[in-house]
């Protein structure tokens, strides 16, 4: 369980929030604090006050996979295989084991053919898949995606969703502006002005957002 208590960071303030395993979508207006919360959950920044615990441990003590809105801006190495191998190399894993895990990860994501390619020559969608592979190769406890679907076409977003669903990551937290995608998750959190307004299942949260632009169009068309 992810538990947040009395959290404060800048304009973000959350008195209490519990998130169970599965896929959680965080939605809300621009500037509502979505990225800030993701950064806190990833341990990229520390809260000014309050606590965040993931299965009882602070974010910086657990393995996290992070993909931001522009994955190529986080990429460190030139070739696909070096980038995907990097989290394992930073952990000083044995070379043979690294090769085996990288190969398996690329095979699972269907990107083995890209292994020797220079990352700068890849398409935007291929870069997202490489970033996903890099985030997943060390089997993180939490996978965090910050609106990385915003710059993907439908085909590429579908491929990324498939990869994420097939992964064994216990907690997947994604921030999205695609309400259709948010409606397919296990949990939903709606933020406004740095606070949690609604949290629960997509059905319960969207019921509270009926009549707003956040209510999924497909639900409006089918109900």
């Amino acid at each position, binding site marked *: 369980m992810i538990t947040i208590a009395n959290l404060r960071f800048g304009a973000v303030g959350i008195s209490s929030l519990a998130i169970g395993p599965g896929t959680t979508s965080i939605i*809300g*207006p*621009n*500037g509502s604090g979505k*990225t800030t919360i993701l950064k806190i959950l990833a341990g990229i920044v520390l809260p000014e006050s309050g606590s965040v615990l993931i299965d009882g441990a602070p974010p910086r003590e657990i393995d996290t996979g992070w993909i931001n*809105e522009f994955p190529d801006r986080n990429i460190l190495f030139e070739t696909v295989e070096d980038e995907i191998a990097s989290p394992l190399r930073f952990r000083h894993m044995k070379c043979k084991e690294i090769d085996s895990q990288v190969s398996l990860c690329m095979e699972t994501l269907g990107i083995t053919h890209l292994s020797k390619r220079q990352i700068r020559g890849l*398409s*935007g*969608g291929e870069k997202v898949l490489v970033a996903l592979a890099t985030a997943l190769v060390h089997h993180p406890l939490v996978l965090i995606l910050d*609106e990385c679907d*915003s*710059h*993907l*076409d*439908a*085909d*590429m*977003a579908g491929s990324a969703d498939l990869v994420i669903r097939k992964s064994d990551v216990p907690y997947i937290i994604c921030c999205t*502006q*695609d*309400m*259709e995608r948010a409606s397919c998750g296990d949990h939903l959190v709606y933020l406004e002005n740095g606070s949690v307004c609604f949290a629960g299942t997509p059905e319960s949260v969207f019921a509270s957002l009926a009549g*707003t*632009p*956040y209510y999924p*169009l*497909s639900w*409006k*068309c*089918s109900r």
Partner: protein
Amino acid sequence: MEVLTMKITMDSVRAIRGEWSLSARGTFSEGVHLISGNIGSGKSTLALLLSGLFSSFSGSIDMEGVTSVMVSFQFPESHITGLTLEEECTSWGLDPFTVLSSVKLYGKKELNPLKLSRGELKRLNLACVLGGQYDLLILDEPFSSLDVQEKERVCHDLSLRKKGITIIITHEQTLFPRVDHLWEIQNCELRYLGGMPEALGAWRHAPGIIKNLMAAGRTPCNISPEDLLEAACRT
């Protein structure tokens, strides 16, 4: 006084970037045009070609009656010149109060635009772009990074644009303005699919909602949320 008809004609245009190329032919008349295509299909290259920022390898692009051109690219950072939001609006020749109030950013008027969230920055850029009158307005991925409220607002504003040629290039799958013409980039080629609603049947990149409505025999009149709801609720 003679009123000039605006149009852009692409005649056997071919753009080449390394081993990749894009072919385009067709005419953009006055109205709102939507061009869809996958990532890497050449959408941004097309925006560069149409705005005169990239030269084609062969073919020609002729503009008739177009005296002013504005292009907005996907990443708003590249458009920023002001050190504050207020300065940014002024640099576009616009009244900061009017522009910033319209996008709920007036309270941040003294902030550096680069301190805004990405969505807020996109909102600011689009408000400045849409605050002017241009014969040719090219919007490359205008909806990326925007929240759904803002997407709806921008769609509404674009649906009202009746003068000039508006070209929206996007892979958006949920919210669209009402458009007059539909185009698609497929296999390195720009194809004109037609006017509304006739073009919908040939639209490969149509969102699932539209495909489902059409499969149920409920072809929407257009692609805005209101049109889709009307089709869904049609008896």
